[in-house]
């Protein structure tokens, strides 16, 4: 029974993630004053990619890279409650499991892309891992006061304990919430922070040698990743009371990121890391101080 529920959540999140991607392209197009592709375009893209025949492989690890990335994000999904009343697996300390499993995706891609011997892929991987130095610290420090406040290290317990609207942790710790939002932007890889896959500079970075079914798997990885990453933010700071609220929240946060993405140019990599170690770091440190002095 639990397996069926797990499979149901997985399918739901994949479909909604692809839908978010399609709507994001539509929203970006409207901001550019274009008509834009239909909202189901992401489904067509994935279907097409899975119908293609790959002509070349660069070795075993090159083929396994997308599989590792996809498996990593699917495993993360199991520990991510979809709002209150929809936890899949939860236990004390699952926050740390989620934060570690989130790294498996980029790591799998790094292993796979590294074997392709393409210099663009190597640059992309180096950029992805450098950028991680920026946002991972901010993300962890932003969630820290919330978890200390509720005295738990379980994402599900935080949702249950913070309750409905006026008691949102995001309203108690607004500075941490703001810092977390900026870190989330880097985690999603939206535009000021899309150095790892900059298509105009390094020809889509780690994905440069991936086409066909590999790229289809990476698209699904991205689709689930959107929900998991925005879901982490929503679960910690806005305590969604049911699954509808969860998806509404992730949608709003993701659309915010998409709008910023459509309006922004791209940082250079050292500018991006320096940006994260500036204002967002001050914000999240103030959030931690707020926990100690006026909680």
């Amino acid at each position, binding site marked *: 029974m639990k397996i069926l529920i797990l499979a149901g959540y997985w399918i739901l999140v994949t479909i909604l993630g692809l839908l978010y991607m399609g709507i994001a392209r539509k929203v970006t*197009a409207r901001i550019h004053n274009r008509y834009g592709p239909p909202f189901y375009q992401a489904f067509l893209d994935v279907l097409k990619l899975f119908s293609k025949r790959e002509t070349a492989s660069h070795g075993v690890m090159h083929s396994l890279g997308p599989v590792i990335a996809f498996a990593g994000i699917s495993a993360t999904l199991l520990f991510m409650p979809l709002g209150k009343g929809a936890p899949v697996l939860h236990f004390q300390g699952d926050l740390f499991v989620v934060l570690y499993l989130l790294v498996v995706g980029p790591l799998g891609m790094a292993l796979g892309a590294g074997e392709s011997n393409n210099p663009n892929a190597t640059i992309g991987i180096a950029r992805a891992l450098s950028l991680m130095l920026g946002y991972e610290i901010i993300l962890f420090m932003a969630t820290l006061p919330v978890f200390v406040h509720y005295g738990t290290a379980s994402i599900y317990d935080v949702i249950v304990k913070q309750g409905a609207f006026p008691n949102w942790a995001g309203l108690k710790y607004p500075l941490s919430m703001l810092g977390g939002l900026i870190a989330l932007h880097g985690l999603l890889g939206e535009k000021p922070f899309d150095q790892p896959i900059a298509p105009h500079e390094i020809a*889509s970075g780690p994905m440069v040698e991936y*086409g066909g079914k590999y790229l289809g798997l990476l698209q699904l990885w991205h689709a689930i990743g959107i929900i998991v990453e925005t879901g982490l933010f929503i679960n910690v700071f806005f305590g969604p009371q049911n699954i509808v609220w969860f998806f509404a929240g992730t949608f709003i946060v993701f659309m915010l990121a998409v709008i910023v993405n459509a309006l922004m140019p791209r940082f250079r990599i050292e500018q991006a890391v320096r940006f994260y170690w500036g204002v967002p770091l001050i914000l999240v440190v103030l959030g931690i101080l707020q926990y100690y002095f006026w909680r």
Partner: protein
Amino acid sequence: MGLFKISQGRSLWMVHFCTGCGAVEMPPTMTSRFDMERFGIAPMATPRQADVLLITGYLTVKTLKRVIMVYEQMPTPRYVIGFGSCTVNGGIYWDSYNVIKNLDLYIPVDLYIFGCMPRPESIIDAFIKLRKMIEEGKANKWKDYIERYDWYKQNQAKLFDINKWRVQK
């Protein structure tokens, strides 16, 4: 199988090989004025991710080598669109000593767009026609390249030594 065909027709990712002056017609086609993304057509950065190879203009013998390398890297099913008069009969370069005259002697071309230059409307029109051909199962020139590989290689060998130009590992 029908669903795959529809998705292949409605999600055409292209790598536009900007060889000649035709490339100047691509920016207005992609951006706000003509917006080819509304038909699911998106520019891609690498040949591995692409379905359509768009040859925009004349090809010298030297660029032809690169085009063949790009074409052979694309995963199947793959399509080629020849863009402008230069790919059909050489265009204004009809008597040039180093520009190829008929593109489809060297790589299989599914569709030609006539004109010098073709307008963005006709580029989008060509993509719509390619979509119809894919949905009807007529865009099968990539199979022709596999079946008559030696014929294409013979034609290429008349222009240059095909064994020498490849990068040896």
